[in-house]
């Protein structure tokens, strides 16, 4: 378990010292982390929730690492996306690929610099994510969240250029102030309960105005970091201006970190405070995100901004988990549904950003209006974009469909009609913005397609592989649901009987 943190941390440090070997170190990490996650999966299946006491101290004084179904799912998603992005980045950063051909060539050492900086920060980001998912107390979660934010901001800044740098700076400011809100909340919780350990907090069942304030502060900080509508304002510029592999990491993984903490906080530490007003409130924000994000995506002129707004919309679905998981009946369905969506969105969105990166590279721009006929020069990227779109729209058998199906069923079982409508409308809006891009792919052009830059194969195959994974993920949903049951919070187990009659 500790290996999941130590391996990427060590290689990150090594990569700082010997930047030349960044790629090789990333592969070592990928292998070690992959093996560790597989091992954990076996342990979890056979023995249930696993706890590791760092240094043998144990909570409350020491630091505990803990893995349950939810954490393992997040670790798996992280490993999968991490490996795919690493593969893509081997070629993306290896040459002057992120230059438009109309611009003066970048000096060779600048590009090399970028390559040298990417790998350690990438590995550091991986460390932070793994540490976050393994943490079992809310203060540790703060530290890991902060580390995650640093790594993410630095990666955005890696693109250089005024737009990316200011986006990174704004991202950093927002992220830091949100973290401070969260930390203040942690302090209040500690003052009230005398502990920051998640299991001990769950055992206390405290309530009172101070705790409500604490939860309010923490939630406010977290939804800002998770870019939940209306706190999403920082996301589109940051995600759209970063280099392609970074955008993929940010949209697929980084924003899921705070969401994960939010789940831990509400479902595990304070399930008793999850009143209908709270959950419906989250649902309303989620619905707002779905509608607003999709409509904004429809209005964007640039491909990467469209994809970024689509992330805003898709994050909204995750928050529908709260209203659908807190009532009696269908809680388990909503729980695995939303997390299924999380995994599917990670794959699909990473594929989309990587495909968008290819398009940007080959055509030299990403104005949607100017993309006519790109399917001819970039058939695989167009395909990847389309397949990823299927999952975002929620068409079967994609992981997106499986997730929506479960949420839909939970909503119908509980008679919460309004969410049903939101789920369906959200799917249609997603179809509209995906189709908007694909229409250009099919536009007929006279003459031969001009391929200005040949793309390395790996950059074509990685997004396609991720998109295929997203589409086929639906078939894994049964297994994922069973995995998620390991150590699932009580609310999510409420209706297991109903799920499998």
């Amino acid at each position, binding site marked *: 378990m500790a290996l999941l943190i130590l391996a990427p941390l060590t290689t990150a440090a090594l990569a700082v010292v010997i930047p030349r070997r960044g790629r090789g170190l990333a592969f070592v990490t990928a292998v070690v982390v992959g093996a560790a996650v597989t091992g954990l999966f076996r342990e979890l299946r056979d023995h249930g929730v696993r706890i590791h006491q760092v240094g043998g101290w144990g909570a409350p004084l020491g630091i505990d690492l803990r893995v349950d179904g939810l954490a393992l799912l997040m670790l798996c998603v992280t490993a999968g996306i991490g490996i795919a992005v690493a593969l893509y980045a081997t070629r993306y950063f290896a040459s002057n690929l992120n230059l438009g051909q109309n611009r003066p060539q970048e000096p060779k050492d600048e590009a090399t610099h970028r390559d040298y900086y990417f790998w350690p920060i990438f590995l550091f980001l991986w460390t932070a994510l793994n540490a976050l998912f393994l943490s079992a107390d809310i203060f540790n979660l703060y530290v890991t969240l902060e580390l995650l934010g640093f790594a993410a901001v630095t990666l955005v800044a890696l693109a250089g250029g005024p737009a990316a740098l200011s986006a990174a700076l704004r991202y950093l400011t927002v992220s830091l102030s949100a973290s401070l809100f969260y930390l203040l909340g942690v302090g209040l919780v500690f003052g009230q309960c005398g502990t920051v350990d998640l299991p001990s907090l769950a055992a206390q069942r405290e309530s009172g105005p101070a705790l409500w304030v604490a939860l309010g502060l923490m939630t406010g900080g977290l939804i800002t970091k998770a870019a939940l509508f209306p706190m999403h304002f920082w996301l589109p510029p940051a995600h759209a201006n970063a280099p392609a592999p970074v955008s993929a990491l940010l949209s697929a993984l980084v924003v899921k970190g705070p969401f994960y903490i939010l789940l831990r906080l509400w479902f595990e530490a304070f399930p008793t405070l999850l009143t209908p007003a709270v959950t419906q409130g989250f649902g309303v924000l989620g619905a707002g995100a779905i509608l607003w994000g999709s409509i904004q995506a429809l209005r964007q002129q640039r491909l990467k901004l469209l994809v970024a707004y689509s992330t805003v919309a898709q994050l909204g679905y995750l928050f529908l988990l709260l209203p659908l998981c807190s009532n009696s009946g269908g809680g388990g369905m909503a729980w695995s549904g939303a997390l299924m969506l999380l995994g599917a969105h990670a794959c699909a969105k990473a594929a989309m950003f990587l495909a968008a990166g290819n398009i940007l590279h080959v055509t030299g721009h990403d104005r949607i209006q100017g993309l006519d006929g790109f399917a001819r020069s970039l*058939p695989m990227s167009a395909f990847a974009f389309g397949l990823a779109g*299927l999952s975002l729209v929620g*068409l079967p058998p994609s992981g997106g469909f499986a997730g929506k*199906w479960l949420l*839909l069923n939970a909503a119908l079982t509980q008679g919460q009609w309004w969410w049903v409508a939101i789920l369906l409308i959200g799917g249609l809006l997603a179809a509209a913005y995906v*189709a908007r891009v694909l229409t250009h792919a099919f536009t007929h052009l006279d003459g031969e397609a001009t391929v200005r830059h040949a793309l390395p194969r790996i950059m074509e195959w990685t997004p396609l592989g991720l998109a295929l994974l997203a589409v086929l993920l639906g078939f894994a949903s*049964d297994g994922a*649901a069973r995995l998620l049951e390991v150590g699932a919070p009580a609310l999510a187990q409420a209706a297991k009987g109903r799920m*499998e009659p």
Partner: protein
Amino acid sequence: MSVHGLVLLGILFSSFVTGVAIFFLKEENHRTRTWLNLLGAGLKLILVAALLWGTYRGQTYSLTLEFLPGIDFALGADSNSVLFVTLSTVLWFWTTLYAVGYLEHSPNRSRFFGFFSLCVTATTGIALSANLVTFLTFFELLTVSTYPLVVHRGTKDALGGGRIYLGYTLAGGALLLLAVAWLHSLAGPVAFKARGVIQSLAAGHRVELQVIFVLFMLGLGVKAAILPLHGWLPKAMVAPAPVSALLHAVAVVKAGAFGIVRVVYDVYGVETASELNVLQPLALAAGATIVYGSIRALFQDELKKRLAYSTVSQVSYIVLGVAILSPVASIGGLVHLVHQGLMKITLFFGAGNYAEALGIHKVSEMNGVGRRMPLTTSAFTIGALGMMGTPFLAGAVSKHYLKLGAEESGDTWAVWILTVSGLLNAAYFIPILWRAWFKPPSDPHPAPGSAKRTEPPWALVVPPVVTALMVIWAGLFAEQPFSPLAWVKLVAQREFGH
């Protein structure tokens, strides 16, 4: 997983693998692509023949895979599936041959044939689905794989038509998803079964089931082009001729109609459905569509548009047959599923040939084509006569059973509708035939240098001739074993039990 289950998988994969392989072929690899296409189509034909023979002898086929929590991905072959899968496979074979000839020199052929194969995979998947979720999966796959075919030409018109197509079908898909999910939340996983699976719920959830039925009909009705939902069909005519043939005869509208058959017979069951009073409105909608489509067809000068409205009208025959509460009418409706497919595909092949060889797109340009292209025009004529309900051809058989059924159940209005529609069919087809055979070719035909050309290459002539012969076969030998009618009677027996 038994050998029998593998047959089902083989039927799906014979076109799926072909499709995926074709995507990776280079544009110039004409020969390899053609062989792959025909190999896939031929293999599928053989497997379906094996399935047909096996089912006839009482062998059951089924296959399940793990899918959603609590729901399997299930394939099966009951008599309904076999009917539809046979139809689509046979017609696909000829359409493939036709498409290979038709798209000889156009760009993006690999893309076209890739999606073409996926489209048929989806159609056979729809036929072989054994539960609602599997059905939904293939139904959406069909939408997604036909869109690139509709917009294939990449012109402004094509893209516009494609947008409308996608809008209609995805909205329909969303309603269908809602219906499936809702029914699932009431009844648990819904596997298709003769006479329905929800009888026990009918008493307690009457209103819900009625609403769900309406949602089902709206969702499926988009593809089946029932009255207020038919708008996409004429717009989608911008697609190349083989695609129109596919949309109208084999895949899309048929999938919608087949879905309605499934929901009425194998989810609700005719008895439960009529108890819920939901069949009468459906019959009325179908009746209205029949008349509306025929009238609109009368006023179209563009040949393909006229055929499109004719499809709108004819597909509702199937729906009408299903919605009228009488075994005889269901026989008529179901057999029309096959017969309409045979006739309409012949007509579209013909229309494609006129456009390809002589550049003719409008009815008013068709003077004298019969002499120029005797084989194509003969096939076209047989298809048109069949549509009008001329005796000894396929259309007459379906209409006969539909009328008998409507009389039996006391729906005299439906008899009237069928008669009126028959007259209207004649009214919009006879002028075409008259021009084709009896008017001298006065104007020079639009295509330059077409004065000497007659029939297009054999790959474009053989398919319509074969399907036209099948129209005659289905009409003349309707009472023989292995005719569509004989098989449909088997289906009806299973549903009604006599």
